[in-house]
C-alpha cells in the first residue's frame, strides 16, 4: 500500500478513467476505438488501483468467480448476436433499418448519431465486458501470485 496522497489521487482518478473507458466502448461505432480498446483503458484503471492499494484490499471487491461469469456472459452475448442473423448468413447485421439502433447515416462525413449501427454497438458492449473481466482477472491473479496469496474463489 502506497502513501495517503497516492491513494487519495487514485480514488479520485478512477472515476474519470471509468467514464473515459465507457465512452470509448459506447461510441465504438462513431469514433476510433471500440470494445477492446475501451476495455483496456478500464483495466489500466484497475492496475492503478492495484498499485495504489494492495492486492489484498482489491481481492475483497473483485471476486474471481464474478469475473469468470462476466467474461462468459460477454462471449455468450457476442456469439448469440452473431447467431441471431443466421437466417441470412452468420454475423448478419439484422438490426439495420429496425427501430433498435437502426438509423442509417448519410454516406460521407457527418456529425454522427448514437442510434445507428445495428448490432455493432451491442457487440462492442459485449466485447468490452469480456475484455474488462478477462484482463482484470489476469492482472489480479498475477499480483496475488507475486505477493504469495491465494486467488479468492
Amino acid at each position, binding site marked *: 500500500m502506497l502513501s495517503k496522497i497516492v491513494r487519495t489521487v487514485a480514488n479520485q482518478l478512477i472515476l474519470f478513467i471509468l467514464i473515459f473507458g465507457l465512452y470509448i466502448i459506447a461510441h465504438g461505432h462513431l469514433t476510433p476505438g471500440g470494445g477492446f480498446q475501451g476495455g483496456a483503458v478500464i483495466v489500466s484503471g484497475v492496475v492503478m488501483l492495484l498499485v495504489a492499494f494492495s492486492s489484498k484490499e482489491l481481492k475483497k471487491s473483485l471476486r474471481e468467480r464474478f469475473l469468470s461469469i462476466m467474461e462468459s456472459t460477454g462471449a455468450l452475448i457476442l456469439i448469440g448476436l452473431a447467431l441471431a442473423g443466421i437466417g441470412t448468413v452468420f454475423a448478419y447485421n439484422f438490426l439495420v433499418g429496425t427501430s433498435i439502433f437502426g438509423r442509417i447515416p448519410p454516406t460521407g462525413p457527418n456529425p454522427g448519431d448514437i442510434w445507428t449501427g445495428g448490432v455493432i454497438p451491442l457487440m*462492442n458492449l459485449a466485447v468490452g465486458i469480456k475484455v474488462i473481466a478477462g484482463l482484470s482477472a489476469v492482472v489480479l491473479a498475477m499480483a496475488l501470485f507475486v505477493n504469495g496469496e491465494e486467488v479468492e474463489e
Partner: protein
Amino acid sequence: MRKVVGLILLLVVVAFLVWGVLPPTMHDFGYPPSDMDDYIIENAQEETGSNNVVTSVVFDYRLLDTLGEATILFTAVTGVLLLLRTLKRREESS
C-alpha cells in the same frame, strides 16, 4: 563438421530470404489490385449504419475473425489462472 553444416544451412536460408524480397519475385506495392477495400469504403455506412468503417469491418464483415480473437483472450485468461493456481498448490503440498 556440425558447424560447417550449420553454416551452409544458414547461408541457404539467408539466400532464400533475400531472394524472396528481391524485385523479380516480389510484387509491386498494391499489386494485384483488390476491389474489396473500395467496396467496403463506399458501402459500409449504408449497409451497416456505422460511421466508423474500421469497426464495421471488425464487427460485421469479418466477425468470425473477431470471434477467434475473443477466443484467444479467453484461452490466455484460462491459461494464466490455471498456471498460477497450480504453482501455488504444488508449493503447499511440498
